[in-house]
C-alpha cells in the first residue's frame, strides 16, 4: 500500500489517538512521557531489546512508569513507540505504538471494565461499534486459562506447566476458537510461570492476576494487578536471567533504580499495555499491520 492510499487510515489513526487521549483525560489520568533510550530494558523471557549505542531502546515503558507510580502519580497513561528485536509479521512490527496506563488503588478486574469502556468510546466515535464482526461495545466474555485449556487442549497448565506445550496449544488450539467470538474476550488467571510482572492471586498462589484481551482471536492488551514486592521482583528478574542464559539470549542488568523505588513502597495498582496498531487494524478491517502505519519497517 502506498502512502497515498494509506491517507484515510492515517487520518483515522490520528482521530483514534485524539479520542483515546480525551477518554483518559476525562477520567483524570495524566499523560506522561518516559525515556525511549533506557539503561536496562525490562527483562522478560521472550522479549529481546534493540541496542542503541551504550543504551537500549525500550521494549516497554513499564519500569519507568512504575517508578512514577511509586512516586505518587496515581493515574498515568502514555502513548508512544516501543521496540522489539526480531518481531516482524502481519501483526508485528519491531517498532510499534503502545498505549500503557497505570491506576493506583485498583486490581486488574477494574481494568476490564475500563478497557471495554475505552473500546466503546472509540467505536461510538465512528457511529458504529461492530468491526470485523466483533462488537466493541458488547460486554466481554471472560474465561480462565485453566478452563480454556481443559476444554480445548485437554490439560491444565496451572500446577503442571509446560512452556512449549502451552505456547503451541495456545496458538493452535485456543486462539483459533477465540477468533470465533463476536465480542471482546478476556483470558485471565495465567499460570505462575507466565506471571511476568503480575502479582499472584492471594487465594491461589499458582495463578497470576493477569489477563489478556483478544479481539477476533488477535491479542490486543495485557493487564496485571502489579507485583509490588521488591524482593519477589528481584527474584523473578534473577530467575528470568537464568532462563535467558540457558536459551543463549542476552541478559540485561537489573534495573536497580526501579527495584529501589519499589522497595521504598509501591502502592497497590493495576497496569495494562494495549497495542495501538492492533486496535487500528481491527477498526480498519485489515489483517496487515503495515496498513495502519505510514512507514512500516521492512
Amino acid at each position: 500500500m502506498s502512502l497515498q492510499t494509506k491517507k484515510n487510515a492515517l487520518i483515522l489513526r490520528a482521530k483514534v489517538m485524539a479520542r483515546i487521549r480525551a477518554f483518559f483525560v476525562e477520567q483524570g489520568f495524566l499523560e506522561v512521557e518516559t525515556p525511549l533510550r533506557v539503561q536496562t530494558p525490562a527483562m522478560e523471557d521472550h522479549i529481546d531489546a534493540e541496542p542503541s549505542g551504550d543504551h537500549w531502546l525500550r521494549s516497554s515503558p513499564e519500569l519507568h512508569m512504575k517508578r512514577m507510580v511509586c512516586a505518587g502519580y496515581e493515574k498515568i497513561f502514555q502513548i508512544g513507540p516501543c521496540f522489539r528485536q526480531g518481531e516482524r509479521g502481519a501483526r508485528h512490527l519491531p517498532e510499534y505504538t503502545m498505549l500503557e496506563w497505570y491506576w493506583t488503588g485498583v486490581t486488574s478486574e477494574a481494568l476490564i471494565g475500563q478497557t471495554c469502556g475505552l473500546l466503546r468510546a472509540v467505536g461510538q466515535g465512528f457511529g458504529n461499534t461492530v468491526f470485523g464482526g466483533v462488537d466493541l461495545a458488547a460486554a466481554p466474555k471472560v474465561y480462565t486459562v485453566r478452563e480454556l485449556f481443559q476444554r480445548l487442549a485437554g490439560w491444565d497448565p496451572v500446577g503442571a506447566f509446560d512452556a512449549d506445550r502451552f505456547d503451541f496449544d495456545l496458538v493452535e488450539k485456543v486462539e483459533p476458537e477465540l477468533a470465533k467470538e463476536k465480542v471482546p474476550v478476556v483470558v485471565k488467571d495465567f499460570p505462575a510461570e507466565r506471571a511476568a510482572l503480575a502479582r499472584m492471586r492471594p487465594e491461589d498462589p499458582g495463578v497470576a492476576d493477569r489477563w489478556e484481551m483478544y479481539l477476533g482471536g488477535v491479542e490486543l492488551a495485557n493487564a496485571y494487578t502489579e507485583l509490588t514486592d521488591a524482593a519477589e521482583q528481584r527474584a523473578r528478574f534473577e530467575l528470568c536471567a537464568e532462563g535467558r542464559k540457558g536459551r543463549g539470549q542476552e541478559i540485561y542488568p537489573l534495573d536497580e533504580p526501579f527495584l529501589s523505588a519499589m522497595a521504598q513502597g509501591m502502592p497497590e495498582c493495576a497496569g495494562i499495555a494495549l497495542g495501538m496498531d492492533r486496535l487500528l487494524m481491527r477498526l480498519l478491517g485489515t489483517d496487515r499491520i503495515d496498513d495502519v502505519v505510514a512507514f512500516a519497517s521492512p
Partner: protein
Amino acid sequence: MYSTSDLRKGLKIEIDGQPYVITDFQFVKPGKGQALYRCKMKNIMTGTGLERTYRSTEKIGKPDLMQKDMSYSYPDGEHFVFMDDTTYEQVTVDVDVVGDFKYFLIEEMPCKVLFFNDIPIDLELPIFVEKLIAETEPGARGDTATNVMKPAKIDNGYEIQVPLFINEGDLVRIDTRTGEYTDRVTKK
C-alpha cells in the same frame, strides 16, 4: 536446511520426504511466550493441505527441486513426453501431474517441468493457449455482448464457456491457469 527466518508464502520445503509449498504464513508470539511460525502448506505432489508450527530454533528441510525448460512432444498412453530444450533428453510425465493441462498441450509448446528428486511432479504451461472451437451453437450475428455465455467444445472435447458471437472454426485464447476463455483471436 532452511531456518524460520526464511519462511514465507510460496517457499518450497520438505517434510517427511514430501515437497510442500507454503500457502499461508503467520509470525505469532502468544503473550509472554516464545516466537512461533505458523505455516499452512500444500503437498506439491498430492495437493493435500498441512498445518505446521515451528519454533524459532527449528530447521526446515530444503527439497531437491529443479525446474527445467522443456517442450511438449507427444502423448504416450497414460503419459506425456517432453523434451529438455538444452540436452534434448526425453522425459515422460504422468497424466496425474498433467491433469487438465492435457487439453491445452500443443506440440512444441514451451513448458516448465518441476522435478523433485529427479521425478517430474509439476508442470507450468504458457499462460495463454490458442485453440479452435470445434462445436458450439451458431453465433447470433451482431451480438457482441461478452457477458452472456454459451457452452462450446474445443477440438479435443474440452468444454468451455464462450460469448454468444463465437462460432465453430473460431480461434480463441484460453487462460491455462483457470481453464477459461479470455478472448477471440482475430484472423489476419
